[in-house]
C-alpha cells in the first residue's frame, strides 16, 4: 500500500487566486449591468473589447515570455473589466484596444506578472491614454448624443470650472444612485459600494485601505470647504463623484501595488484620500483619484518598511515532550 507524504499543514482554506479574482468580478457585476442599462450597446462594446484584448494580450505575452499561460485565473479579465468601467462609453475601438493592451503588458506582465506589478496595471494603461489622447476621456462629450434622465455634465468638470455654485444643482441622492455622468461603471456609486461591502465581508479586501481613503477625502475636503465654501465643494460631494468609490474598493486595494501591513495600509489610504482632494482642487485635472493612487503606489515599498514588529514567541523554557 502506498501512502502519500507531504509537509504540513495538511489542510487548506481553498480560497484560491482564481476564486479571489472571480469574486472581484462578481462584485463588479452590478456596475456592469448599470453600464449596460444606462449606455446600451456602446457600453457592451467597450467592455467586451477591453476584456477580450486583456485576456488575449495576457496569453500572448506569457507565450512570448515562455511562462505558463494563466489566463483562467481571472486576473487579466478583471484588469480589462476595471479598465472599461472607468472609461466613457463613447471611446473609439482602437483606444480601448491600445489601453487594455498597455494595462496587461506595461502594467502587469513586464514586471513579472501577477503579484509583481509596482503600480496598479489598470491605472498605468489609463494614465498613458489620458496623457496621450486627453480628448477621448472627456465625459461631457461622451454623453452628448444621449438623452438621459439626469444632468449631462460631469460634476467634477462643473466644480473645476464654476466652483460650488454650479454644483448646487446636484442632489446627493441622485449622485449616490448613479444619476451622474462619469466612468460607465464608476458612476454607479451605490452599486460599487455594495460590491465593495461584499468583498469586505468575504475578507477578500481588508477594511483599512477603503476606510482611510474615505477618511482622507472627507478630512481634506472639509479643510477646503470650511475655509471657503463658496469655491470648494463639501466632503459628501467629493465622496460621491468621479472614481472615488471604485478607487476605494477596487483600484487602491490591488494586492501587489498596495502595502501588506496594517500601518502601511492606513498611511496608504489616507495618502490617497488627501492627494485626491488636493489634485481635484489645485491641479488642472477634474478628478485626481487615479493619479493619487499611482503616486501612493510608488510609496508602497517604503510603507512596507514600516516596522511590522515581529512578536517574539520563543520563550525561555518550554517542555514539549
Amino acid at each position, binding site marked *: *500500500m502506498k*501512502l502519500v507524504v507531504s509537509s504540513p499543514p495538511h*489542510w487548506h482554506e481553498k480560497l484560491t487566486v482564481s476564486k479571489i479574482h472571480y469574486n472581484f468580478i462578481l462584485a463588479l457585476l452590478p456596475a456592469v449591468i448599470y453600464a449596460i442599462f444606462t449606455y446600451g450597446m456602446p457600453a457592451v462594446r467597450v467592455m467586451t473589447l477591453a476584456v477580450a484584448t486583456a485576456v488575449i494580450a495576457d496569453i500572448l505575452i506569457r507565450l512570448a515570455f515562455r511562462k505558463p499561460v494563466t489566463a483562467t485565473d481571472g486576473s487579466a479579465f478583471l484588469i480589462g473589466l476595471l479598465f472599461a468601467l472607468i472609461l466613457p462609453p463613447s471611446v473609439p475601438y482602437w483606444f480601448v484596444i491600445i489601453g487594455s493592451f498597455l494595462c496587461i503588458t506595461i502594467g502587469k506582465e513586464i514586471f*513579472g506578472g501577477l503579484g509583481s506589478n509596482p503600480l496598479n496595471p489598470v491605472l498605468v494603461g489609463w494614465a498613458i491614454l489620458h496623457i496621450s489622447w486627453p480628448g477621448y476621456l472627456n465625459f461631457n462629450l461622451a454623453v452628448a448624443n444621449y438623452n438621459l434622465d439626469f444632468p449631462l455634465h460631469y460634476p467634477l468638470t462643473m466644480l473645476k470650472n464654476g466652483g460650488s455654485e454650479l454644483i448646487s444643482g446636484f442632489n446627493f441622492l441622485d449622485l449616490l444612485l448613479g444619476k451622474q455622468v462619469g466612468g460607465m461603471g464608476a458612476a454607479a456609486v451605490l452599486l460599487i459600494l455594495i460590491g465593495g461591502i461584499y468583498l469586505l465581508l468575504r475578507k477578500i479586501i*481588508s477594511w483599512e485601505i477603503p476606510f482611510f481613503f474615505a477618511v482622507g477625502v472627507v478630512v481634506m475636503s472639509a479643510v477646503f470647504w470650511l475655509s471657503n465654501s463658496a469655491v470648494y465643494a463639501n466632503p459628501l460631494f467629493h465622496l460621491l463623484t468621479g472614481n472615488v468609490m471604485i478607487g476605494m474598493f477596487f483600484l487602491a486595494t490591488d494586492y501587489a501595488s498596495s502595502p501588506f*501591513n496594517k500601518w502601511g495600509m492606513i498611511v496608504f489610504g489616507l495618502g490617497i484620500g488627501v492627494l485626491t482632494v488636493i489634485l481635484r482642487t489645485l491641479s488642472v485635472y477634474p478628478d485626481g483619484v487615479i493619479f493619487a493612487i499611482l503616486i501612493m503606489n510608488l510609496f508602497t515599498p517604503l510603507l512596507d518598511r514600516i516596522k511590522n514588529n515581529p512578536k517574539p514567541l520563543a520563550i525561555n523554557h518550554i517542555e514539549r515532550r
Partner: protein
Amino acid sequence: MNSLLLKSKEMKITEVPEPKEVLLPLKGFDEEKEKLKIKEGSRVKTGEELIPGVYSTVTGTITGIDIMSFAGTDLTILRIAVSETDEIAPEITAAADYLEKDAAELLKKLNRANLGFDEELKDIKTVIISAVDTEPLAASYQQFLIENPDTVTEGLKLIKHLTAAGKVFLALPEPLLSSAANLTAGAADIFPVKPVYPNGLPEILTRDISRKYDTGKTAFLKIEKLVAAVLALRDGKPFSHKVITAAGKGKIKNLKVRIGTPLKDLLQDMQPGENEKVMIGGPMMGTACYNTDLPVTADVDMIYVQDAAEIVKNENNQCMNCGKCVEVCPAHLSVNLIGRYAEFSIFEQCRDLGIQHCIECGLCAYYCPSGRSLVQFIQLAKSELEKIEAEKIETEGEDVE
C-alpha cells in the same frame, strides 16, 4: 481572525485492547555499549529501564531491534512481544503521603516513572498546565480534564510542592469554564482560552499569559502529564498509557492506548487506502508517515487519516502579495517577504525579518491563495541559517588560532 475552531464536543475516552507487540524508539541508542543489556528473548517489566532514559511501557519479551524511518530521520526501534500479565518494575513504589516528601526526591521518582520532568523545574517562576488541545480535530486534553477532575486538583497541589512556583495557571477552553470553576481549589489560576487554532500551542499560550501576568521563567505542562505524575507517585503506576485522538474516514474518537502501540492496531476501522495520508499529529502541524508500522510515542497527541480527495496539492504559484499570511501570523511576521527570500536563497534577509520567531503553526500556508509551501520555505531558511551560523563560528575559531 481565523475560522479554525478547536473541537469542543465531549468524546468519551475508550480503552484500546492490548497490542500483541509494542515498539519503543531507543533514543540515543549505542549498540556497542548496550548490547549486553538488551538481548533477544530477555524479559522486561513495565517501567524497567532499558537504556539510560528509556523505560519499558509494557511487560513482555524482547524480540529484536529494527530501524524505521520517520520525518527524515532513522529511529532505532525495540520490539517487545507483550505478555498477558502486566508486572510493574519493583523500583516504582506507591506512597500515599507523597506530598510530604522532598521535591528533589519526587522529581527523581517521576523521571524514574518515564515522565521526563526537567530538573530545571526547581527555579521556575510560573507553571502553565494546559487542557487546551493544540490541533483543530484533537480533543484529548479537554476530555482528560472532564474525566479526571479530582486527580487534576491533586496534581495542582503537587506542582506547587514540586516547583515552589509563584504562580500556576490552568489553561482551559472557554466552553469548559463553568464546569471547571471549582477544580483548582485555590492551587492555580484559571486562564480561559478561545477555542481557536493556534491558541493551544505552548508558545502561544505562554505568550498570551505573559501579556496579562508577570510570569518570568515559565514551564509548560500538558494536563495528561500532571495526572500521570499523581498516578505515578500515589499509586505507583509508570507512565505507560497515552490518550490520543484518532480521526479519519468520517470518524473521530479519543483512545487510551499503550505507549508503543503500532498505528495499524489503532486504525482498524479507519484503514487508510491507496494514496491516502496518515499523519502523526493533527492536520496543521502533523507529520505524514510512510507506513502504519510506526508506534505511538509519549509525545503523540493525535493520529489523523486523510482521504485522497482531501489531500492538498501544493501548487506553489507566484506570491500575489495579498497579505493574508501577514494578517493571520500569530508572530506578526512578514511571511510573504520571508517566503520569497527563502525561495530565492537570500537567507540573511529572512533572519532580519525575524524568522526565528516562527513556530511553524502553518496558518500562513493554510490561507495562502497561491498554495505556496510557506512552512517548508521557512524550515529550509531556518536550517540554512543554522548552517551559516555554524560556519561562522568555525571560521572565527580559525582566525583566533
